């Protein structure tokens, strides 16, 4: 398959590489941008471990090819903490033991960020529904829900750092 040059913007940096067009975005992020915080947990787009933000919206980076992400702004877990300070959502996961092995955590954080940017005061049921695209095998989800709820109530929401949600008609 003939390669082509692609430049992706990830966490405000540019990454340029010659790739086969069939390269999945998650593989570009992990192996070419060397940002290994985004993970692969399945081969059918069910697990959500690969969740990143594309122009402020959660996407599963295993479901798009790297060239499709050209011209967009991608944010991964490595781009969430700023200047050595944990984001309030990351801090909440730490305080409420919302992670064990850590493998689902980057995807959970990215999904949580999107949830809170659209719905700053979700109910626990809304949290559960909204993270139902992210599978966790360690926590039984209880403390993840606890963490996201705590972050929403903390009053330290601050800048969720994401682009405002544009409805489908505006994308």
């Amino acid at each position, binding site marked *: 398959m003939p390669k082509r040059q692609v430049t992706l913007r990830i966490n405000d940096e540019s990454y340029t590489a010659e790739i086969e067009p069939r390269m999945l975005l998650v593989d570009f992020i992990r192996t070419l941008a060397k940002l290994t915080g985004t993970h692969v947990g399945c081969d059918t787009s069910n697990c959500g471990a690969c969740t990143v933000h594309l122009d402020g919206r959660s996407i599963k980076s295993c479901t798009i090819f790297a060239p499709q992400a050209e011209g967009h702004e991608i944010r991964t877990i490595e781009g969430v903490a700023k200047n050595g300070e944990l984001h309030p959502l990351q801090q909440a996961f730490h305080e409420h033991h919302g992670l064990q092995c*850590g493998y689902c955590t980057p995807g959970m954080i990215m999904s949580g960020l999107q949830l809170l940017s659209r719905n700053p005061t979700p109910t*626990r049921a809304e949290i559960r529904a909204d993270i139902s695209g992210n599978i966790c095998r360690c926590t039984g989800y*209880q403390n993840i829900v606890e963490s996201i709820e705590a972050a929403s109530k903390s009053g330290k929401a601050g800048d969720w750092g994401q682009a405002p949600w544009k409805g489908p008609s505006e994308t």
Partner: protein
Amino acid sequence: MTTEKAPAQERQGKKWVGQPVRRKEDLRFLTGHGNYTDDVTLPGMLHAVFIRSPYAHARIVGINASKALEMDGVFAVLTGEEVKEMTDPFDESIRAPFDQLRDYCLAVDTAKHAGEAVAAIVAETPYLAADAAELVDVEYEPLPAVTNVEKAMEPDSPKVHSNLPSNVVWNDVFDYGDVESAFRDADVVVKERLHFHRFTSAPLENTVVIASYEPISDTATVWSNNQRPMLNIPFISKPLRMPSENIRFICPDIGGGFGIKNNSYPYLVAAVLLAKKTGRPVKWVETRSEHLEASTHGNEVLYDGEIALSSDGTVLGVRARAVHDEGSYMRREPIGAINFIRHATVGYKIRNLKMDISTVVTNKAVVGPNRSYGKMQQCYLIERLIDCGARQLGMDPVELRMKNFVQPDEMPYENVSGCRLDGGDYPGMMRRAMETFDYEGAKRECDEARKQGCIMGIGVGMGMDGCPINAALIRVIDPKRQTSGDSEAASIRIDETGGILVTTGSVPQGQGFETTCAQIVADELGITPDDIRVAPGFDSATHAYTAFSGTYASRFAIVGAGAVYGAGRQIRDKIVKIAALLMEVAEDDIELADGQARVRGTNRSMTLREIAHVAWRDLARLPEDLEAGLYTHYVYRPKFDMPEANKRGNFSFTYSYGITLALVEIDAGTGKVKVHRLVVMDDFGRRLNPLIVEGQIHGAIGHQLGAALYENLYYDDEGQLLSSTFKDYWAPTAADFPEFEVEYLETPSIATPLGTRGGGEGGGSPLIAASNAVDNALAPFGGHITDSFLAPERILKQLQQSSDHQTEIESGG
């Protein structure tokens, strides 16, 4: 960026053990800087893909990889024929002639389950390797496959291993007490046929292996997310024909294990062979479908069980035939089949028990350790029989359990198989569970709901988890095996600048060992957990370890903590000794606090750093008989004995236990089960870190409820796994679970130095309570639960078949 210390109000009395200290390891996981095996890259590394059999059973006629090898960037192929030449088969635990069962890292001569690896190909990139794999031409001759375990037991069944006389590769009878008399004297005997279904804890991170090989020294380094490195190194050294000393094993961060990552050793062997063949490091990353098809499945058991009761509810005896569907190879089995011994009668005083156990090979994926390995299954058998007994007697199932519980003042209690329960308050826990659940109120709510036409039920379940495991258990299978006991090691070094490094042989997969180890050492040395670095993961070149090192059988809280505690005490003693020498006081006058050694009642002190400096650098000040440096290595060994001749023995050291009460409702239209309330009680003895323990319990509930309601590995008659992706194998999401209500008892174990019991596997009480609750819901309809997987279609069928239900439909109710 530093992990913050726990706020002051949590640090009661300056003691760290027992406090809900936030985890040291969180920082890297929260910010995407975890180091999982697929994050590791080596210069010149190549990528492997396995070619797998589409057939459940087939002769491998030939493998032609010529087209694949012609591609640029494709380096090598490995086939079963080469593996047969280059390696020795894996050791088996079963007796002759079945120990002739041949198990290699690739299928040899025949493929024995759909998805079994028959060849491997290595290329420059993973994408290229996948392309090349498609060009490898394997010719198969399909053979009849056997997927039903009872059919596999018949003499005319297709044989999974053609060189064995039968598919029933192991059988033994465990006869404790006088079961015949018990059943003769019984007022009531209930017979049940039960099926415990096949599922997997399916960690989110799949198996990954990297191997590099150095030909001049004949040494290999393996990176893998495997849970038992120090069993697997010698285990793979035999097939590889290398001294085990020549194999270095590194476990980076692991994305969940749950037992499933114990048995990945065939892939370790294949990776080393590929590294040898290509002269380059080779990495293999398992896909999710490979993981579901060809890693490890949990024990699947068919039980024909009977319980004998007297009319007042006393359980006189239990007997059962248990048939284990092991899949196509035995690997670590029949350990899972005999693990029942540890929880033979759960928390009850049942003095007569007979288990007739067979393990049978079939053309399915291989069974092995899966969270609550063989323990949950035995608890399920006993608990379902007890519930059925209660139903027959017309007795409340909680009341019947209360009548038969081992009482707290009978502890320590030796059960009928010789296991010594190390303390606990079963009736007390049940009472608390009933109170939190409002058992009487829930029963009333259920009755009311039923009058309104809702299909609701309440169930109770008890689980038990014996930890760690006495390796002498294998002698019950083969008395000639020279293996027994358990041990773990820890090391602590305080360097001359006062930096502290702790290592252990425990292999973490999310249990927070870096934090709990730091808590234990902080208490011994009078410092804080932030002052201590605990080496992450495991590396056989740099970590303390013993032959049993790893994380499995919920052992950390006993042997891992025991080793770290012992090392902490040892290094504390040395610090005190040196401080006393240097400050010219008695050792009893020295206390360690706030990072210093102080002379009690004075303001004279030395910092740990100053003491360490002298110990490493200023040696003329030390007496001749004092070893220079500040380093300690400690091995903790629980006192385990050999089993007795009649298959009795204490095979665990501690027995944690739990009780769940569940309130469920069944949708009359779909048969789907909704859990309205789940109250879970657990006792893990003294909790080293309550935050971490609670997380473990939530996770165990998640796995067990998931297994009961959603997760089922099922095959068609041709041996095709129909639930081989996350589209078909329903790993539950946050929307699929109720809120968990969790409480604890903390009755310290009398057996361990810190009063801890093992925790983490959970013993099965939520899964059991779910079955019992659905059975209770179906009872008014004459329905009955006989399978641990609560399949909606089966429940619906039971509802549709019941005459009550028909009457309701006819009357429009």
